[in-house]
């Protein structure tokens, strides 16, 4: 027998709300879902009037709903934001190339300017190339590190003040669980933050859907008939996150409230006094924000045997001055147990280390692909 909506007490309920268990009708669901995001934005003061906001969109369910809701709220409550669409093409055949078609449709539908940046342009490698190189374990690490930097660089390119992403409550709960399982205390502290960016020169990243249930995002898109692309990344079956995801889904089936409770637990964790935490500094190679002398992306790239990223943060003259300090990198690499380009011993008089170009003809300068340590 049909149940009545607990909000308007009039229309038929078509969804059981995850957080409360209350039945709700279509129209009330749309309104409440949107209003809850609006309240999150207000409560945590996520935006300021006049800001240029780059929305990281992939064509998937979360970012499609994000773009739609942000556009709706911007108009309804007159946030005065200049919204843009920003998409990153990791170069995964059959996955990303299809979903980008969806993003291009979004550009037309919402009338919001779209910028697409590719790993190929930024780093010289597509994810397909990377996976061919390193296999199917740990490739998510590369993709995640590269994508975060790519979003930042893309945002800087379009002069955005903020970046928003469609991370939902389930995602954050999974990340909390993953960090607990791996004992990654530093990440655990940061991962529940709704806005990142202690670094004054970085662009803050905001997650307006932080408290929105994945199930409700899908329901919203379904009932609103929003067009999105829905396939799993072809490399994801091997991903570690899958374990956390299965666990979270099982918990949700028993008690949906658990997802928000896990986020709350993650937020409430505090590190004991006296525990050494990483401090944020700038990468000596590319000037990107980093916990170490050389940022993870540069280390990964060295391991992949390429030079500096092609689109850089900061002045290019500065980058040229701070040319890769080979000795420092070798030291670092030894610590992390990866090999880098071998220094040419005969023929090369540059004293700056092997450039890998092979022009000197030295037998020692063969491009040997570095073997990346398992911990990556």
């Amino acid at each position, binding site marked *: 027998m*049909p*149940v009545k909506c607990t909000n308007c007490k009039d229309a*038929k*309920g*078509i*969804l*059981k709300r995850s957080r409360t268990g209350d*039945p709700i009708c279509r129209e009330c669901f749309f309104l409440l879902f949107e209003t809850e995001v609006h309240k999150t934005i207000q409560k945590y003061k996520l935006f300021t009037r006049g800001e240029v906001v780059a929305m990281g969109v*992939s064509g*998937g*369910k*979360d*970012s499609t709903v994000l773009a739609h809701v942000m556009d709706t709220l911007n108009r309804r409550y007159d946030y005065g934001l200049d919204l843009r669409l920003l998409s990153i093409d990791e170069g995964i055949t059959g996955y990303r190339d299809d979903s980008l078609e969806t993003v291009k449709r979004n550009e037309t539908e919402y009338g919001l300017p779209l910028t697409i940046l590719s790993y190929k342009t930024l780093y010289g490698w597509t994810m397909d190339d990377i996976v061919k190189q390193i296999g199917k374990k740990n490739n998510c690490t590369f993709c995640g590190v590269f994508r975060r930097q790519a979003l930042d660089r893309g945002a800087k390119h379009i002069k955005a003040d903020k970046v928003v992403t*469609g*991370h*939902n409550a389930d*995602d954050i709960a999974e990340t909390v669980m993953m960090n607990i399982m791996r004992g990654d205390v530093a990440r655990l502290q940061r991962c529940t933050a709704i806005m990142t960016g202690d670094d004054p020169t970085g662009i803050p990243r905001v997650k307006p859907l932080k408290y929105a249930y*994945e*199930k409700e*995002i*899908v*329901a919203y898109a*379904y*009932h609103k008939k929003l067009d999105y692309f*829905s*396939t*799993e*990344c072809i490399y*994801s079956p091997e991903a570690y996150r899958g374990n956390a*995801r*299965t666990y979270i*889904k*099982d918990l*949700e*089936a028993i008690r949906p409230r658990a997802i928000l409770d896990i986020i709350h637990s993650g937020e409430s964790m505090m590190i004991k006094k006296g525990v050494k935490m990483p401090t944020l500094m700038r990468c000596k190679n590319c000037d990107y924000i980093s916990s170490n002398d050389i940022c993870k992306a540069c280390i990964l790239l060295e391991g992949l045997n390429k030079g500096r990223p092609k689109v850089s943060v900061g002045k290019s003259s500065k980058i040229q001055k701070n040319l890769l300090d080979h000795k420092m990198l070798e030291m670092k690499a030894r610590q992390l147990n990866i090999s880098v380009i071998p220094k040419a011993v005969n023929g090369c008089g540059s004293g700056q280390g092997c450039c890998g170009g092979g022009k000197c003809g030295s037998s020692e300068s063969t491009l040997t692909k570095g073997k990346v340590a398992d911990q990556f």
Partner: protein
Amino acid sequence: MSLNITLAFGGGAELLFGNVKENKVTLEKAVEQWTIKTLLVWIKDNLLQHSPEMFIRGDTIRPGIMVLVNDCDWELLDKNDYVIEDGDIVTFISTLHGG
């Protein structure tokens, strides 16, 4: 009496069913009453093309796949024990993919 219903698949679930998003099927009177529970078994035996563990867990739907009957959340409707009626549209939407 046999039931004529429509099965719809979305959110990636259609990949398990040869990319067919909608299927009109007839359920013969093999059981007294068709419920979602018995329908799932029927789907597994008759429609599912591969990887049953991606769709079914034990005797119910895999957690992460939403079930709707005539666009209504099955959680408001007795879930596995909902008795299917002639003309019903049962929709399965997977939420298990990147956003």
